[in-house]
């Protein structure tokens, strides 16, 4: 009896030890450690190594380690990656280490979070460790979104400019010519898009638009639709970072009314595609799509016949009642890297950030997953960006990229904006619809 109990106890201990063992072994990272000759720079990533983007980071780290760059005291800098598998898991890990001082040298950071991290001194300025040549290589939108109080806190090797994908062939079939399509100088407004959809519908052609309002949750909504506000001359917050009076200002509401118009009439015209086919645009189910650069890669690889039948024009601009059009503003921004306050060698970490986001890494990302490079020299490459949709998007990024708002209360703001856009989506055209009132309530929720 006693022997049996002891056996059970032993089994329980073995089970517990195994569980702890599994937990310990499940760490998704390298096991490099500092030595007298080697300085290890640890990087936390928001991706899994099983994903294409994660695998690219592994390649970039290997390339960096082969370069054998040196610290100021002559040690070889080696990069060690830890894959946190998701942005939420990365956030949790960062939050968990804020008190204990166990942050790695470098963390991946989404562009809108840079301000909050910089304001709380979780990440360090990079300026003193990077030369002007290095900094000047990046497109302006990257520098703008990564700058807080005049100091550069992060760098990004990829960007995601967005615009209006349009089926050139379809539009030409109802009388449009190349000269009619929207450009940065002479953009289409939302009213022009509506007019084109009307023409297509009248001609019994595919006419719908895919708005991707559910793409990427609240953050995706801010990424794709912040130009609505900017194009109308509106702002998300005032100079004191208050949303009341800015998010619900006349200009901002004017910008939002462009979406309101399309949704209010949608029940009668069925303009908006609500299906689940991610490739509805190249598949010929819709005539237009508001989206980032990823579709270019999909079309290049999987819809070769469609390659010459489409292009991208600027995100539709605001148009006032008297026909005055707003300025082109393009969605942009992506994940970058920053050096944390717990780094053991800020110089070495900064060199690693510069490499992780440098021209080689940026080009590798473009080739593999279709994100846009963030270096002017790469965007000047005629072969990749000299024609077609890639050229259109690169011009948009260089000339009209509008970074998302940079405030400490960005999480509240992005939720509030997404709620407002979804309110338009679900309530526009109904009897109790009141955008101004709803926008005010949401602005108050940000300032509270």
């Amino acid at each position, binding site marked *: 009896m006693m022997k049996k*109990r002891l056996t059970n106890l032993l089994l*329980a*201990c073995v089970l517990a030890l195994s569980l702890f063992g599994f937990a310990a072994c499940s760490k998704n990272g390298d096991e490099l450690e500092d030595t007298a000759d080697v300085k290890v720079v640890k990087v936390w990533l928001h991706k899994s190594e099983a994903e294409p983007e994660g695998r690219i980071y592994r390649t970039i780290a290997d390339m960096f380690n082969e370069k054998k760059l040196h610290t100021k005291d002559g040690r070889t800098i080696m990069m060690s990656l830890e894959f946190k598998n998701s942005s939420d898991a990365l956030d949790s890990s960062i939050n968990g280490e*804020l008190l204990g001082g166990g942050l790695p040298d470098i963390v991946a950071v989404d562009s809108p979070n840079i301000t909050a991290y910089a304001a*709380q001194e*979780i990440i360090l300025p990079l300026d003193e460790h990077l030369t002007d040549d290095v900094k000047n290589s990046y497109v302006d939108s990257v520098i703008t979104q990564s700058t807080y109080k005049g100091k550069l806190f992060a760098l990004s090797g990829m960007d995601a400019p967005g615009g209006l994908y349009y089926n050139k062939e379809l539009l030409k079939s109802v009388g449009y010519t190349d000269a009619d399509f929207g450009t940065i100088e002479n953009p289409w407004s939302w009213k022009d898009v509506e007019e084109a959809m009307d023409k297509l519908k009248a001609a019994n052609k595919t006419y719908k638009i895919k708005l991707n309002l559910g793409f990427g949750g609240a953050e995706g909504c801010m990424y794709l639709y912040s130009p609505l506000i900017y194009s109308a001359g509106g702002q998300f917050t005032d100079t004191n970072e208050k949303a009341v009076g800015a998010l619900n200002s006349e200009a901002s509401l004017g910008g939002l009314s462009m979406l309101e118009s399309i949704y209010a009439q949608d029940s009668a015209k069925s303009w908006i595609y609500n299906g*689940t086919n991610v490739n509805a645009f190249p598949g010929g189910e819709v005539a237009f799509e508001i989206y980032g650069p990823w579709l270019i890669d999909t079309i290049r690889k999987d819809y070769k016949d469609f390659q010459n039948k489409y292009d991208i024009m600027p995100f539709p601009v605001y148009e006032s009642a008297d026909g005055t059009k707003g300025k082109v503003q393009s969605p942009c921004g992506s994940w970058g890297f920053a050096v944390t306050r717990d780094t053991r060698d800020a110089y070495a970490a900064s060199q690693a950030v510069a490499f992780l986001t440098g021209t080689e890494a940026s080009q590798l990302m473009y080739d593999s997953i279709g994100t846009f490079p963030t270096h002017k020299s790469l965007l000047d490459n005629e072969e990749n960006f000299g024609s077609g949709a890639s050229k259109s998007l690169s011009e948009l990024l260089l000339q009209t990229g509008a970074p998302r708002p940079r405030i400490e209360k960005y999480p*509240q703001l992005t939720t509030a904006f997404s709620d407002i856009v979804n*309110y338009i989506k*679900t309530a526009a055209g109904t009897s109790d619809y009141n955008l101004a009132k709803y926008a005010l309530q949401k602005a108050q929720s940000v300032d509270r």
Partner: protein
Amino acid sequence: MEKAKKTKSIYYKFLGKTYIKTDSVVGAAFILPAVVLGAIFVIAPMVVSLSYAFTDANLLKLNEVGWAGLRQFKKAFTDRFMWNAFKNTMIFVVKVVPLQLLAALGLALILNTKIRGNTFFRWAFFCPVMLSLAVTSFLWMNLLNPEEGLINALLKVFHIPPQPFLESPKQAMNVIVVISAWQGAGYQMLIFLSGLKNIPPELYEAAGVDGAGSGTKFFRITLPSILPTFSFVLVTMLIGAFRLMTQPMIMTQGGPTDSTMTMSYYIYQQGIKYRDVGYSSAIALLYTLFMSTVALTLRKVTDQKD
């Protein structure tokens, strides 16, 4: 003498009761992992959260926590979005608890009869419980897609216009209620079934001899016999319903127009997404007090009936 000494060393007394030493050691060893894990992952976070409720703690600067007194609680009482979340949660509870309770009891009653394929049905009804909430949420999102979803395709067959479901502020919460009841009922069904199996068949036989019909048998024998089970299921279901978060988080993100924002999701949003740990903890404390009061009152009422 030696034997008595040896016997004495095996036993020990604690609070007037005699225990065997080795039994206690083995028992303690078995509960030790649960106690340690419970202390680390349940008790300690509760204590920390309780203390944060009186501070202005922010997730990004937990080393600079300032005393806020009752400020966070005052803020909660004037927060219209919190009250909206509270209202939505109550709507969910009021709708889902009776629906799920009746569904679980109904299924248990069906399975308590000798029907063909009883084992298969038991497995089929329990199946949704085994699936992850996230998985079923995504599954239902596809089924309920206004344009391409299977549900609207079926409605079309019956000449019913397509419904917006999760995209309508009027329908979204009702959809979540139905999905939650579907997913959860299988578990309560099993508990009810075990309660039903414990009712002596002689009671039904005697009632049958006395000429009692099915309705009389159900209300006079079945229901009173499973009342303790019923009470347990009701309280656990109620607490589960108060904690609703996964489905709205995945399917609607609290929308459209805040119609599916629940208290648990709101607490999560304030604390994790907005990093306002102090405020989030204050709401969590208030909500815990509310839930405890409701659960204890209900328990007391049903215990009295027992």
